[in-house]
C-alpha cells in the first residue's frame, strides 16, 4: 500500500508539471506579443521595457517558464491587469465560492445518482428503471446553462421563490452558511447537479445490474442472506468504480460551473474567468485555470489513494 501511494504521488508530479506548462503557454496562445497581455496597450515605452525585465520576458522561453513556476509555487501568480490586485488573492476568493457550489451540487448529484441508479439496477427493466434511464439521458443531454435560465424563469420570475442572481443578499461575494445565502445557492446547485446525476445514475445502474447477475450474489442468496446483507456486498463491490466516476464528475463540475455561474452571476471562478477573458486579463485567466486544474489533479490523486482502501486488489495491479 505504501509503495502504491508513493507510485501514485510520483505519477501525479509530471502531470502537475504538464498542467503548469500548458497554463504558462496560454499567454503565448493569446494573439500578439505576450507583453500586450500584461501591460495596457497605451503604456509608455519605458514602462513596457521595465515590465519586460520585471517579468523576465527578455529571457529565453524555458527560463521564463522556470522563473514563472518558481513564483507560482510561492503563491505569486502575478497581478491582475484589470483590478491591479494580486491574482492569487482574487482566485482564492472565487475558488471558495466555486467549491461551495460545486461541492453541494456534486453531493446532491452523487447521492441521488447512486440512489436512482441502485433502484434502477435492482429492478432492472421495471418502470423505475425506465424513469431512471430517461432521467439520465436528459441529465447528459440538457445544456445546463439553458436549464439555469428555465429554472430562473419558473422559480424566480413566475413563483418568486428563490433569488435569480448572486451568492448573497446585496450582491455580497463573501459566502456565509446562513439562510439568506443558502436561498441563493438553491437554483445554481440544482442546475449544476444535473450533470453528475445523469452519468452517475447510468454508471451505478449498469454496475448494480451486472453485479446482481454474478455468481457470488446468487451464492449469498442461496445461503439465505437477507437483502440488506447482500446490498452491503454489492455496495462494497461497486464502490471503487462509483468513487472514480464521482471524483471525475466533481472535477468536471469545478470546470463546468463556468457556464452556470455566468447565468446566475455567482461570484466564483467561472464568473472570474468570464470577466478575465473579456478584459483580456490573461494573468487572471492563467491563474484561475492553473488553480482549478491543480484541484482536479489533487482530486484524482485522492480518488486513486482511497480506491485500494475499499478494494485492496487495486493496489496490487
Amino acid at each position, binding site marked *: 500500500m505504501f509503495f502504491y501511494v508513493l507510485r501514485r504521488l510520483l505519477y501525479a508530479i*509530471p*502531470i*502537475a508539471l*504538464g*498542467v503548469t*506548462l*500548458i*497554463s504558462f503557454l*496560454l*499567454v503565448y*496562445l*493569446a*494573439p500578439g506579443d505576450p507583453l500586450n497581455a500584461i501591460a495596457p496597450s497605451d503604456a509608455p515605452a519605458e514602462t513596457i521595457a521595465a515590465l519586460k525585465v520585471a517579468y523576465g520576458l527578455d529571457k529565453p522561453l524555458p527560463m521564463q517558464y522556470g522563473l514563472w513556476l518558481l513564483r507560482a509555487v510561492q503563491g505569486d501568480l502575478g497581478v491582475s491587469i484589470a483590478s491591479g490586485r494580486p491574482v492569487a488573492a482574487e482566485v482564492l476568493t472565487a475558488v471558495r465560492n466555486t467549491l461551495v457550489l460545486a461541492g453541494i451540487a456534486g453531493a446532491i448529484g452523487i447521492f441521488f445518482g447512486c440512489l436512482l441508479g441502485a433502484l434502477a439496477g435492482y429492478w432492472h427493466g421495471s418502470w423505475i428503471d425506465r424513469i431512471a434511464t430517461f432521467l439520465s*439521458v*436528459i441529465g*447528459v*443531454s*440538457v*445544456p*445546463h*446553462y*439553458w*436549464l439555469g*435560465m*428555465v429554472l*430562473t*424563469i419558473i422559480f424566480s*420570475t*413566475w413563483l418568486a421563490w428563490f433569488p435569480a442572481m448572486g451568492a448573497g443578499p446585496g450582491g455580497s461575494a463573501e459566502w456565509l452558511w446562513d439562510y439568506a445565502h443558502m436561498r441563493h445557492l438553491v437554483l445554481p446547485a440544482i442546475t449544476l447537479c444535473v450533470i453528475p446525476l445523469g452519468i452517475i445514475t*447510468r454508471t451505478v445502474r*449498469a454496475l448494480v445490474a451486472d453485479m446482481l447477475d454474478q455468481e457470488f450474489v446468487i451464492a449469498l442468496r442461496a445461503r439465505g442472506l437477507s437483502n440488506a446483507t447482500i446490498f452491503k456486498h454489492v455496495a462494497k463491490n461497486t464502490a471503487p468504480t462509483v468513487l472514480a466516476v464521482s471524483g471525475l464528475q466533481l*472535477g*468536471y463540475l*469545478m*470546470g*463546468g460551473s*463556468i*457556464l452556470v455561474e*455566468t447565468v446566475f452571476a455567482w461570484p466564483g471562478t467561472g464568473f472570474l*474567468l*468570464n470577466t*478575465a*477573458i*473579456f478584459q483580456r486579463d*490573461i494573468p487572471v*485567466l492563467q491563474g484561475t*485555470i492553473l488553480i*482549478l*486544474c491543480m484541484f*482536479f*489533479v489533487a482530486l*484524482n490523486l485522492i480518488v486513486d489513494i482511497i480506491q485500494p482502501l475499499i478494494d485492496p486488489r487495486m493496489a496490487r495491479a
Partner: protein
Amino acid sequence: MSSRARISGRSYWFVVFHQLKHEPVALFSALLLLLIFLAAIFAPWLAPSDPYATSMIHRLQPIGSPDHLLGTDELGRDMLSRLMFGGRLSLLMGVAPVFMAFVIGTSIGLFAGYVGGKINMIIMRMLDVFYAFPSVLLAVAISGALGPGMMNSLFALTLVFIPQLVRVAESVTTQVRKLDYIEAARMSGARSFSIIRVHVLGNVLGPVFVYATGLLSVSMILGSGLSFLGLGVKPPEPEWGLMLNTLRSAIFKEPLIAALPGAMIFVTSIAFNLLADGVRSAMDIKR
C-alpha cells in the same frame, strides 16, 4: 485475401445498420435529426423571412403572432427564421470538431498503439496531461486565450476531444496488435501500413466510432456554450447558444421565446445521445 476482408468489413457495417432498424428510439432520433439538419441546410429556401432583418416596432412579439409563428427576438427579428439559420452553426459546432478529432485522434491512436513501446508511452503520458483539464475548462481556456471567434472555438473543441479518441483507438490497437493473425500477416510479408489499413483499422473504427457519436451532443452543448459565453460566434450571426445569451434580457417579458434556442439545443442533443445509444447497442459494445 484482401478483397475478402473488405467484403466482410462492409457487411459488418451493413449488419449494424440493419440492427439499427430494429431500435425504434434510435430510428426516431435519426429521423428527428434528419429533419433538424434539413431545416438548417435548406434554411435560405425554407425560412419565412430574413433572419437579420430587425424591426424596432415588432420587438418581442409573442409566439403565434400572425407574421411570426415563433415570435420575434429582442431586436424584432423573426425567431423561426433565426432558429433555422442558427441550426447551421450550432450543428456545425457539434459535428465538425468531433469529425476532425475522429480523424486526427484515430490516426495518432493507431500509430501509438501499433508502434508500441517507448514511443507509445511518451505519446500517452503527454496526452494524460490534457486529461488533467476538465473538458469545459480546457475549451474555455484555449478559446479564451485565442480570443472570441468561431474558428477559435472549433479549434479548442477539436483539441479537447483528440486525447479521448486517441485513448480509445490506442487501447484497441494495442489489444489487436498482439493477436496471432497480425503476426501471420507480418510474416507473410505485409508492410506495416497495409497491416494497419486492412487488419487493424477495421477493429479500431467501431469502438472509436461509437465513442465519437457519444461526443456529438457534448460538442454541440460545449460549442453553443462557448457562444453563450460570447467566445464563439459573433453577433448578429444566428446561433442557438448566442441567441440564448442575447435573449437573456427578454427573460421577464417573453420567457418562452428566451428559452426557445436552448430548447433546440436540448432536443438536438437528446436525439444525438439516443442515436449514439442505439448505435452502441447495435454494435454490441459495452460502455
